[in-house]
């Protein structure tokens, strides 16, 4: 019986507490990302942004959350209620489960699995279901068009993301995310693989449906795209899912290209707390770039989006994949077997 307590029970309790800690941190980060976005956009457009509720408007996210929570949930007539309600839950759940494999520092990871990067890729490729299910179940043509657009967009950009991941993996020789970070001790991958870094960043924008690729929402033509019929908490879950996905994509960018928790030029030690602080700073930088892009560029037209994905990024990433493999073999830099 003692085997049960020490072997199963306590580790399970500790894991659940760790998961709760990560989820709470992510939820707070997400709430303040909405605030950060509104502030950054406001400053770029020479406005003030939220500044009424609390000091500098800092309580604004909680006021928004409270407002959404007190609204009425409306299920449109003719909608497929089960799938209609399942879609936002699925999207939000997927955006959270991906964090299981993200290393926040050396050894600070919930599940240090061997195929971490494939797990992330699998989870991010599932996000499309939440959107397409929402679009279909709403029984509305705007929502359906938004869902279809989003499905085509995410599937298209996943292909080039896949090739970028393979290129990074060639340089690392492991699918483990901690190994990927440790392989960047000499040089962060965004320097030798700069074109792939750009491709990954732009594909990340498309994958998270952010401006200038926010066609699934396209408020000027599709009202609000796939979540036009949603209200109250189910709407909030879509919103939360989108922002958590943004943070996740930034975390992936920092791990794959910006050295994860490693400090630049070794100016501080890499162990906890420093490593985690560097990681958070890098995520914030990439998030700022996301918002910067949103404030700067107009929305793509749909045919331009598809053209960019299939005719520019796919050949470019395929070429860089072959080139990287060739250079690694030619120079004898192939990583040793792990």
């Amino acid at each position, binding site marked *: 019986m003692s085997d049960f307590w020490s072997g199963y029970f306590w580790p399970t309790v500790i894991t659940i507490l760790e998961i709760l800690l990560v989820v709470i941190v992510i939820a707070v980060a997400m709430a303040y990302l909405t605030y950060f976005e509104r502030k950054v956009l406001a400053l770029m457009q020479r406005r003030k942004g939220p500044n009424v509720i609390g000091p500098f408007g800092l309580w604004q996210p909680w006021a928004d959350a409270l407002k959404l929570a007190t609204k009425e949930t409306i299920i449109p007539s003719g909608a497929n209620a089960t799938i209609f309600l399942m879609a936002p839950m699925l999207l939000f759940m997927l955006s959270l489960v991906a964090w299981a494999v993200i290393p926040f520092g050396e050894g600070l990871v919930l599940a240090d699995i*061997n195929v971490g990067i*494939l797990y992330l890729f699998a989870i991010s*490729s599932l996000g*499309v*279901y939440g959107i397409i299910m929402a679009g279909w179940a709403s029984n509305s043509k705007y929502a359906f068009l938004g869902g279809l657009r989003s499905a085509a967009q995410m*599937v298209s950009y996943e292909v080039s993301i896949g090739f970028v991941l393979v290129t990074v993996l060639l340089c690392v020789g492991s699918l483990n995310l901690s190994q990927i970070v440790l392989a960047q001790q000499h040089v962060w991958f965004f320097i030798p693989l700069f074109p792939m870094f750009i491709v990954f960043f732009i594909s990340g924008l498309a994958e998270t449906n952010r401006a200038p690729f926010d066609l699934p929402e396209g408020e000027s033509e599709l009202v609000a795209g796939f979540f036009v019929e949603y209200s109250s908490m189910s709407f909030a879950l879509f919103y939360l899912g989108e922002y958590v996905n943004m943070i996740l994509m930034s975390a992936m960018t920092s791990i794959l290209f910006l050295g994860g928790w490693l400090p630049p030029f070794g100016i501080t030690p890499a162990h906890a707390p420093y490593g985690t602080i560097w990681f958070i700073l890098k995520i914030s930088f990439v998030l700022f770039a996301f918002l910067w892009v949103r404030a700067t560029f107009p929305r793509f037209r749909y045919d331009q989006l598809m*053209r960019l994905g299939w005719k520019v990024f796919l050949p470019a990433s395929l070429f860089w994949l072959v080139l990287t493999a060739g250079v690694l073999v030619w120079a004898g830099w192939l990583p040793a*077997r792990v």
Partner: protein
Amino acid sequence: MIVQAICFYIFSAIAVASGVMVIAARNPVHSVLFLILAFFNAAGLFVLMGAEFLAMILVIVYVGAVAVLFLFVVMMLDIDFAQLRSGAVRYLPIGATVGIILAVELVLMFAAWVFAPEVGQALAAPMPGAHVTNTAALGDLLYTKYVYAFQAAGIILLIAMIGAIVLTLRHKPDVRRQKIGVQVSRRRTETIALVKVKAREGIGEEEGVR
């Protein structure tokens, strides 16, 4: 061990149940969603066996790509399934034959394992040690011993892809496409004509917009 056994039964029960629902659901979209659930549980079974690479690839390829296309097609098609169902009796013999053949094959395979356990061992590659991850082990085998089979599979898929493109590619003459090169390399003189407009005459037909 007991936790693994419980997980195994949960995953396989859901997989079988959702497999049944794929053919039993009235709504084709629900069928596809149940199919996805079945894929997921199969991935869970792979993880239980320690084949985490296969599990992830199953989710990425089948759930992330193939099933999305299924869902796409099924949502776009306007199929009256009640009408399709009415012909079920007519096709029952063919369906039953295929089902029986599959069942017999399964039984034969299990029988071979039970009566001659060494058959399985002769086919299987030797298990690599615990220090090799199963991604590396698969790669070792695929790119050395089975490299021709692997390449042949790749070529077959490529041909299928080319075939699909050839079948669906149509050049419509009246579709307006954006030619970015032409657009960017356009000069001012080609597009803008400055015209001095005389009072009370306006722009003549020949001088107007080309």
